[in-house]
């Protein structure tokens, strides 16, 4: 059994804390997140409110827990969309290497990469109406070429191997080989990339909801908490600091997890890192 890299353990632990907090928030939060309590507004961290309260007197810890739900849901579904569309396209392109389909898929990828993702995401959410769903769609579209590229790259290196040749000699078609032999063997690459895209999705969702185009009130979201705190940063720093820290720690955790997974599953990379 290979030893787990330290960063992977750390990353997994950090990510798990947020996922757990999000799950727990479905059944319990320290305080409700919808009621206003102006009397205790902008209270600094205390025993009753470990992270303080915001400008409406809402408990920041509770808001962060519920906000984690939004961030994680948006990022995970966007990764799902990217994988669901990108991986089949990448496999298809690799199976037809150098052919017309390969060319179309790869040029299509380049084209999507050429579009300013943030601008298009803002365009989509502005047109279709700001909501968590449209944010997912916008982020998911830009995840697609990433997964297509990773799947194609991984698959291409496998198609040259002897055991694939053996499968072809045995009479298996390209589709069957792609599904039975290629896909399981590029799964580790896809999971690593999925973790990275997950963290990028968290950042993108935070950015979109920061400019008001993500999940709409009263659904708490990390990005909007930051936007609302902007004018009060110097007055009560804790309102701006904790949501930002939540984003940083979650993204850091996922990135560490992704890097660790890559090192762990690909021993060749260990030397280089």
């Amino acid at each position: 059994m290979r030893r787990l890299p330290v960063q992977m353990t750390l990353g997994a632990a950090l990510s798990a804390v947020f996922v757990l907090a999000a799950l727990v928030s479905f059944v319990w939060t320290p305080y409700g997140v919808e009621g206003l309590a102006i009397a205790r507004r902008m209270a600094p961290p205390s025993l009753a409110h470990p992270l303080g309260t915001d400008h409406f007197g809402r408990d920041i810890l509770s808001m962060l827990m519920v906000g984690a739900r939004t961030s994680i849901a948006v990022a995970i579904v966007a990764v799902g969309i990217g994988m669901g569309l990108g991986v089949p396209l990448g496999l298809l392109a690799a199976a037809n290497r150098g052919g017309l389909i390969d060319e179309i898929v790869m040029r299509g990828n380049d084209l999507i990469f050429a579009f300013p993702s943030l601008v298009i995401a803002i365009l989509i959410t502005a047109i279709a109406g700001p909501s968590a769903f449209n944010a997912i769609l916008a982020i998911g579209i830009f995840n697609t070429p990433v997964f297509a590229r990773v799947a194609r790259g991984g698959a291409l290196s496998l198609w040259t191997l002897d055991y694939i040749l053996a499968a072809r000699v045995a009479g298996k078609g390209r589709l069957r080989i792609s599904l039975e032999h290629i896909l399981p063997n590029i799964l580790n690459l896809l999971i690593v990339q999925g973790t990275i895209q997950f963290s990028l999705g968290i950042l993108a969702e935070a950015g979109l909801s920061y400019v008001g185009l993500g999940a709409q009130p009263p659904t708490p979201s990390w990005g909007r908490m930051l936007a609302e705190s902007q004018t009060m940063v110097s007055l009560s720093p804790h309102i701006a600091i904790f949501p930002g820290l939540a984003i940083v720690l979650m993204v850091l955790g996922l990135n560490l997890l992704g890097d660790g997974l890559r090192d762990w599953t690909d021993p060749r990379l260990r030397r280089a890192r």
Partner: protein
Amino acid sequence: MARYLASRLVSLLVSLAVASLVIFAVIEVIPGDTAAFMLGLNAQPDTVAALRAELGLDLPRSLRYLAWIGGMLTGDFGVSYTYRVPVAELISARLQVSLPLTLYALALSTAIAIPVGLIAAARRGRPADYAIMGVTQLGIAVPNFWFAMLLVALFAVTLRWFSAGGFPGWEAGLWAGLKALTLPAVALALPQASILARVMRSALIETLGQDYIRTARAKGLTEAQAIRAHAFRNALIPVMTILGLQFSFLLAGAIIIENVFFLPGLGRLIFQAITQRDLIVVESTVMLLVFAVILVTFLVDLAYAAIDPRLRR
């Protein structure tokens, strides 16, 4: 070299053509009548129809596409529906903020990332390397708009070294302009520098493992000399790819930072145009940005060929 150049040029033109079709199609499916939007709720149907005719919105799609592309090629980007000025004028005014901001951020990020990446690679596996990797890992995770808010709270509100936002214009002098762009540029540069330093480090480590470096070391060069004479140049290829991507990313990706600092840049122009349904501004500006990305990619490809003669064939 000529064949390489020609094939790259063809793919550049095809990409541009397809991108323009995609942008036009996306703008076409946007619900809402621009003319009705401009005139407000109480407009008479015939006034709306007259305005549609004036804006050329009643023409068939194919004609409008050709008119738009023809205009773009001759420098006529259309006239903004809300500002009533040529889009080209709007864009060039906004570029005076966005372009310097992008270059400023890129310069900062490169100036930090290259030496930091070099040190990490030269000291790989030692405490300095771990410290740098840790800090850059953190730098990647920080959302730039949050970092910007903290910078404003510290340097603008508390210390009063910089203004919290706004742009005085270059008429106010080079120094005043640069000062207004400093905090935004730092905020943009942090994640970019972190990514670039990591790329620099791994590219250099990869190069240092090559046979020709071993040969150079066997000839008696120290590692520092080998890096300077052979490894650095070779490690620059992936670094330049990332730099090219970052340039185009920053040009449009500063939208959120421009909002934090109330900067009249390209990002805010698009953002406002989208919310005001000023579609011709959105269409032409996005096309210009895509053009910039495709052009930068093309130039990076050419730069590869300049750095690495093998790629010219």
